[in-house]
């Protein structure tokens, strides 16, 4: 079996089951160790709980905590996982409405803006009406301003009528720089948790960013990444695919 890239291993759900939390932690640490040019703690690596990894050397034990940097907590409505669910639901309902009104069997692709809870209910009908308006604009990219109707649609592509058509979402996400406030929030939260962890001589924190996950992808090379911590000896941000490492402490 060919070696998959880190992001593929994290997200490949076609041929393999999704990796467990422990499998992901192992992948992150292995890839970080390969990419890290500095001095990694000497000793035997043991995957554990609280903290996630122990590097055991007769002289000292280093505990490494591994976490992923989600731009927005996954449970919040504005997070990418929640928005993805809304987009899929809206498109499915809109297609049903469009076909029920005698629409053609066209293939449409939509790019969305943010969908609020209020607009989620009204949007399928508006999208079905929009599909009706563009049903003859075949094979052209249709860009919509935020003031257009529906305001949540950024662009659409009508492939026309052919066999096995579907309506689908092609999401384009804006890039963002790592938020220092969010970074500090993650570190402080982990500092609190470490108080209940097994005793180690030092703790490291590895904050990972999965490039291929739109809920995480961000530019981690910010101008001033330094964050003080009395708990962690070293703190790193690590981004897959690019193998970028930013020393936060």
């Amino acid at each position, binding site marked *: 079996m060919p070696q998959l890239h880190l992001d593929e291993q994290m997200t490949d759900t076609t041929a393999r089951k999704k990796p467990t939390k422990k499998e992901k932690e192992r992948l992150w640490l292995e890839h970080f160790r390969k990419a890290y040019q500095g001095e990694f703690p000497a000793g035997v690596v043991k995957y554990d709980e609280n903290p996630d990894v122990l590097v055991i050397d007769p002289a000292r034990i280093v505990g490494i905590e591994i976490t992923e940097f989600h731009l927005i907590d996954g449970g919040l409505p504005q997070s990418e996982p929640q928005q993805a669910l809304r987009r899929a639901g809206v498109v499915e309902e809109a297609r049903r409405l469009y076909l029920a009104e005698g629409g053609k069997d066209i293939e449409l*692709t939509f790019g969305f803006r943010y969908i609020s809870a209020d607009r989620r209910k009204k949007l399928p009908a508006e999208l079905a009406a929009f599909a009706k308006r563009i049903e003859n604009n075949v*094979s052209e990219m249709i860009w919509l301003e935020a003031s257009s109707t529906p305001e949540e649609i950024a662009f659409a592509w009508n492939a*026309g009528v*052919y066999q096995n058509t579907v309506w689908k979402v*092609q999401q384009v996400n804006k*890039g963002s*720089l790592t938020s220092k406030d969010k970074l500090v929030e993650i570190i402080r939260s982990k500092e609190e948790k470490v108080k209940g962890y097994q005793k180690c001589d030092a703790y490291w924190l590895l904050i990972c960013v999965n490039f291929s996950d739109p809920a995480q992808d961000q530019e981690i090379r910010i101008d001033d990444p330094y964050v003080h911590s009395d708990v962690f000896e070293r703190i790193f941000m690590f981004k897959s695919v690019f193998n970028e490492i930013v020393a936060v402490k």
Partner: protein
Amino acid sequence: MRYRADVTLIENSARGFPPKTFAGQSVEIRRVAPITSMGVDGTLSVGYQPTTVRWFGGEVARFEHITNVRIVSSDGNPLLEGGLLLTYEAPHVISGGVQFQVL
């Protein structure tokens, strides 16, 4: 714009199948200008847009396992080379041929 051209369908895989070239074909190529925007890291990003091709006399079945397409005009000028794009349209039947996209 319509051209007389050689269409080469390429399967970029480990199966080792050679490219298939169909000489003297009639194709219509519709290009869209790239869009640009400033990235958050300060570099200008270029977003290339799909090129839509109508291949008159082509067949959808030819595109099974195909990943890349090269089109060279009959006088030898390269017209198009890129990956077969399935994001917006799969290769599909049109009147007298097949339509597909390349990026």
